[in-house]
């Protein structure tokens, strides 16, 4: 008996070719994922390596004498009179306190007194001044405080500054770093977790060690509230009307094309619109989270509308038909049955839209939010109105810090990126969890 010409058990040439082509395709797919994963790994490693330092900060523990003679000559503890002593006056007290401490510990150093003083951050004087003005009873006694160390000293304990780089650096010296090491051994200098990075406002170029994300996070929060309060109801209402009520016509087709178009418009265009309409025409405040929020609302609306319509479409027509057949009105059918079933999809779309808005810088450039802002914005004030105080935003702070001359800000910028990534990861995870938890399949 001759074997059959074709057997399912023996692969012929054609089958082998098909299998080889499938294997090639799979390899290509794997390679594509590999490239993407590699790019992500490189990005994350570089950001984490550069930015991890921002979450640790070096402090100098000092006992600062507060002589009445230099802080409150009149001795009346009158706030107005005490406020006349500027931060320059308080800086001298800090410098004396550090020199005393070094003398008490019998540490030898060749550094001039002013170079020792430069080891304390310029921010420290302001911190001390605020502390004393808030607690006038301290005058005449001692204040125990942990003050910020200057940026270069801080960089030394994080490995950013080395003895070799300090030798060439005009802002510090190897002697200063060696002194700092001795002080650290004597437990006067300590590096610990940096809560200030998350709460403090931005700082000027002379004090990178003091810069924080407080104002930026508040600004981002206010903008997200504005976006949520406006984009969600408007977007959902528009989608429900378009999907459930609007007659299919040329006009509704035109609107649909325009919405898809708007979703792809470069975001800076919305910034130009915001400047022209909200600031120049409506007279709203520059740099305010309100204007920022409105601009981001316009930017996010198309995303929300598109995802909401998709969610509404995915609810089977049988649900509507059943409701209508039992005598519900169109509105009842939508609000009692369709909308609750579409809610997980709508929420997911909204969260993704918000995450996109949170990471946006370009439109904020034009409305004055790319700025140096030190004061925490309040949500409401009589002069500025709702969300009218000047603020920045998280991505803007990254942009600002990458432009600063002091290398300390590069570390802060990476730290800010990490913070932003954590927020985005939380939002995107929430979106996925919501979808998993509440999604219904038919």
């Amino acid at each position, binding site marked *: 008996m001759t074997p059959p010409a074709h057997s399912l058990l023996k692969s012929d040439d054609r089958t082998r070719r098909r299998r080889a082509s499938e294997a090639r395709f799979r390899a290509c797919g794997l390679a594509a994922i590999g490239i993407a994963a590699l790019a992500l790994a490189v990005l994350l490693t570089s950001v984490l390596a550069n930015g991890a330092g921002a979450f640790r900060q070096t402090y100098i523990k000092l006992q600062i004498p507060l002589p009445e003679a230099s802080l409150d000559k009149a001795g009346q503890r009158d706030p107005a009179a005490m406020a006349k002593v500027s931060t320059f006056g308080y800086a001298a007290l800090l410098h004396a306190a550090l020199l005393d401490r070094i003398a008490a510990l019998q540490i030898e150093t060749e550094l001039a007194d002013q170079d020792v003083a430069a080891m304390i951050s310029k921010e420290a004087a302001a911190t001390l001044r605020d502390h004393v003005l808030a607690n006038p009873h301290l005058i005449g006694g001692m204040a125990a405080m942990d003050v910020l160390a200057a940026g270069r000293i801080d960089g030394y304990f994080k490995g950013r500054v080395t003895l070799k780089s300090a030798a060439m650096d005009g802002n510090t010296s190897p002697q200063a770093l060696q002194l700092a090491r001795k002080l650290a051994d004597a437990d006067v200098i300590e590096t610990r977790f940096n809560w200030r990075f998350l709460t403090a406002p931005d700082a000027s170029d002379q004090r990178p060690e003091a810069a924080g994300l407080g104002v930026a996070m508040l600004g981002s929060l206010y903008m997200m509230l504005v976006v949520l309060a406006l984009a969600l109801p408007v977007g959902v209402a528009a989608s429900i009307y378009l999907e459930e009520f609007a007659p299919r016509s040329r006009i509704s087709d035109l609107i649909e094309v325009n919405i898809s178009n708007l979703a792809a418009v470069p975001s800076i265009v919305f910034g130009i619109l915001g400047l022209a309409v909200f600031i120049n025409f409506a007279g709203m405040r520059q740099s305010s989270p309100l204007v920022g929020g409105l601009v981001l609302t316009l930017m996010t609306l198309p995303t929300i509308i598109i995802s909401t319509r998709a969610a509404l479409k995915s609810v089977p027509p049988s649900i509507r038909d059943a409701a209508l057949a039992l005598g519900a009105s169109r509105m009842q059918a939508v609000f009692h049955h369709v909308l609750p079933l579409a809610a997980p999809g709508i929420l997911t779309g909204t969260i993704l839209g918000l995450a996109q808005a949170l990471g946006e810088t370009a439109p904020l450039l034009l409305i004055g939010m790319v700025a140096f802002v030190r004061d925490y914005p309040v949500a409401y004030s009589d002069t500025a109105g709702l969300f009218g105080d000047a603020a920045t935003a998280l991505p803007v702070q990254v942009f600002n810090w990458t432009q600063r001359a*002091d290398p300390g800000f590069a570390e802060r910028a990476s730290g800010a990126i990490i913070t932003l990534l954590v927020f985005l990861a939380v939002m995107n995870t929430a979106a996925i969890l919501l979808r998993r938890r509440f999604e219904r399949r038919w």
Partner: protein
Amino acid sequence: MSLANLTAPTLAIAALSATAAAARDNVQVAGSSTVLPYAAIVAEAFGENFDYPTPVIESGGSSAGLKRFCSGVGANTIDIANSSRAIKPPEMKICAENGVTGIVEVRIGYDGIVFASDINGNSFAFTPADWYLALAADLPVDGAMIANPNTNWNMIDTDLPDQSIKAFIPGTKHGTREVFEEKVLLQGCKDSGAMGAILQINGADEKAAEAACMAVRTDGLSVDIDGDYTETLARIEADPNGIGVFGLSFYENNTDRLQVATMSGVLPGTASIAAGDYPVSRPLYFYIKAAHLDEIPGLQEFTQFFVSDEIAGPDGPLAEYGLVSDPQLTATQDAVSNRALLGGM
């Protein structure tokens, strides 16, 4: 976007703008990114020591800042424009057309422009003529303009190191570019005798000759940097042959990564710039809208604080950061206190 989408935000805006149009209580500043760090230092100290809110400071460039400054008077326009060059007559005309008629000019000090390269590379001693011969688009040779043949610094001057020419200069939107063109390229053109040769070739057309002197080669040996000095620094770290143009304060904050070149034998520094020995420097300004001085709380105090001896003087924080303090600071302080308006308006 549908009509329904537009109406809701519009209504919201109408409701909110009623409150938002009220007067402002913080000072708003915009303009030059060179002046920004100085302004931020002053704003920070001002916020710490006065009861007024800390001024809000934006960058964006001198021209953009002056344009916004000149866009009108009122709480939703800026109070101060920072500028790394003096305001120009056409800008003052636009200001006047928009009702900004009273402007106080304040010169805060001088800024040096330095040439720096990678710390591990060769050291340089430049003259303006070297830079002209290295960067000019066309050079006059034997009565005709030919494309710049120089590709190595030692082709220009045998005393310069054997290193191929690669320059990172500020892009045209920067005020620094203008100073670089005038004080380095044009000066070098005159010093090297090329100016005379060009005039002979083009028939004594002085304007065209100056333009030819300041035209930069486009064959890739000179790269325009439109970003900030941080970008220039990154480019030099990537290409050790590169030589970049920086502000003095930027260099002083990065001395562990950059080495600075001398210009005409003078090392740049606050002392040599203040004495007028270092040739490439320029004044920095800010402009105050006089109409806002009595409207915006803290504006007068902030501007006086900015030019006070303890801030802008030779021992103040600005000088420490790299600003060359103005020898005529007292006159500036008087001008700010008396609100001396810029003439010609």
